[in-house]
């Protein structure tokens, strides 16, 4: 694996010194996120999320499959997230590095284990046919904080996606094409989003670390929260030890950040919906 070059001491000292004064090299204050930009494709369920220069493309597709025998009423949500060398030269194709495993596990926990998507609503005919959703994440560029960007892209894509309308008559299943009947959105219970904080020795934590900041940090903590003030996943794996109060203050910052992120997401979805008005004659 090509090893990354460690940042020079001068750069490290400069960044740490500016953080000590409450400044970051890209002009943000410590608890500020980079601007979020969401773009949608022509197809429904296709979304690119840009968080500063980090970008992740999420795409949702659906197909009809047979459910598992022990869970005849449940559809599937598969998350594919392999980080290709396109994102950054430290990732290698076909080999799971530790960072990569942590990102994909965190996404699985945030989206699948918290039951963000109602899987029972994906049932078409019990024991016979269910929807299988496939969420594919393409990591386009890694300038730090891939996880938050990926979680936002994934949830936006799931909210954006529409599955074809289905009609069940006896044992017959009719799939109506989008031209024929308006496709239906997924049943989504809540919108979990990730926020990542980086810690430095004797300095206040920063939100949304860039790649360089992440490399220099002595620890990080990722939270998955939703707008209902529920903590879905919390992962602080080692790094600098923190007092309970420090963790709780970060959690509270996370709550308000997630609210803002959800607002950005809603606005983007609303704007996109406005551009998709179809005339029915």
């Amino acid at each position: 694996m090509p090893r990354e070059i460690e940042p020079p001491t001068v750069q490290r000292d400069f960044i740490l010194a500016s953080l000590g004064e409450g400044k970051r090299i890209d002009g943000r204050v410590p608890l500020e996120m980079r601007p979020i930009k969401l773009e949608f494709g022509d197809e429904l369920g296709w979304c690119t999320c840009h968080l500063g220069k980090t970008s992740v493309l999420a795409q949702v597709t659906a197909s009809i499959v047979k459910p598992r025998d022990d869970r005849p009423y449940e559809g599937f949500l598969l998350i594919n997230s392999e980080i290709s060398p396109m994102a950054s030269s430290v990732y290698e194709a076909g080999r799971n590095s530790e960072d990569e495993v942590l990102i994909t596990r965190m996404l699985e926990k945030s989206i699948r284990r918290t039951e963000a998507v109602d899987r029972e609503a994906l049932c078409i005919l019990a024991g016979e046919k269910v929807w299988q959703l496939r969420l594919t994440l393409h990591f386009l560029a890694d300038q730090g904080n891939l996880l938050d960007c990926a979680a936002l892209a994934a949830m936006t894509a799931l909210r954006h996606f529409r599955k074809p309308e289905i009609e069940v008559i006896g044992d017959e299943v009719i799939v109506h094409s989008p031209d024929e009947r308006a496709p239906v959105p997924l049943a989504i219970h809540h919108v979990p989003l990730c926020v990542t904080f980086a810690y430095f020795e004797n300095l206040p934590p920063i939100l949304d670390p860039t790649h360089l900041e992440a490399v220099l940090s002595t620890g990080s903590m990722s939270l998955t929260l939703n707008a209902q003030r529920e903590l879905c996943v919390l992962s602080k794996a080692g790094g600098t030890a923190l007092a309970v109060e420090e963790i709780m203050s970060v959690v509270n910052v996370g709550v308000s950040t997630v609210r803002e992120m959800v607002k950005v997401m809603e606005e983007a979805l609303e704007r996109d919906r406005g551009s998709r008005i179809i005339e029915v004659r």
Partner: protein
Amino acid sequence: MSTSRLEILNDGGLRHDARRPYELRSLSLSLSPHPTADGSATVTSGLTSVTASVFGPREPRSRAGTSHDRGIVSVEVGVAPWSGTREVRRSRGDKRLTEIAASIRQTFEPVILLHLYPRSEITINIQVISADGGILPTAINATTLALLDAGIALLDYTTSLSVGLHLTQPLLDLSAPEEADLPHLVVASCPASGKVTLAAMETRLHVDRFEEMLRLGVDACRVIRDEMESVVKKKAAEVVRRSQAVIGVPDAR
């Protein structure tokens, strides 16, 4: 929330294995079970048993990743096929095991005084012998003891346990059936400072409840530290006694 027919807390306020909410499972700690490792420990908490062995500080097996001014830590986690994890058998490349290994490595990197071991590697091997909930906390406890047994310089003990929540009642040290049913949090902390080094939670929980659980977990970590300390001191006294017998220093008593 709970879907199974397991009664988490019965009318008498007892859990399914007759423990009270804040009662830990029987904890047994043994030092140096491994004959050749530099340090090893087995921690058995109820029906969960984990052995950790530490090799090093020694010359790194590969040059990549070594550092000229500090030691590196590498962690391998294995789960015995008979351990009783209800899921499919976990192989070496399993993502969950990689995640546990990464958590343990990152937990101990700031605790071990790595600047004392430049250009060297400390390898921690963890084997889950039987699993009944709380693999990660038990593994962390075993690792702390194994590192102490190997004589590696640490800032403090790092102790860990899981905290669950049933309705509004926090429960300590969950077993596997409870873990499957309840939102739970794994806390690892350095008891001397009361600071949290690891916190991991995977289920939905309201923010206000979380704080209560976290505080309780930190307190409970102190209890485990006392338990560990008594075992370590006993062992140290034994070593001193034996070495004095060999070099013929008259017994102080």
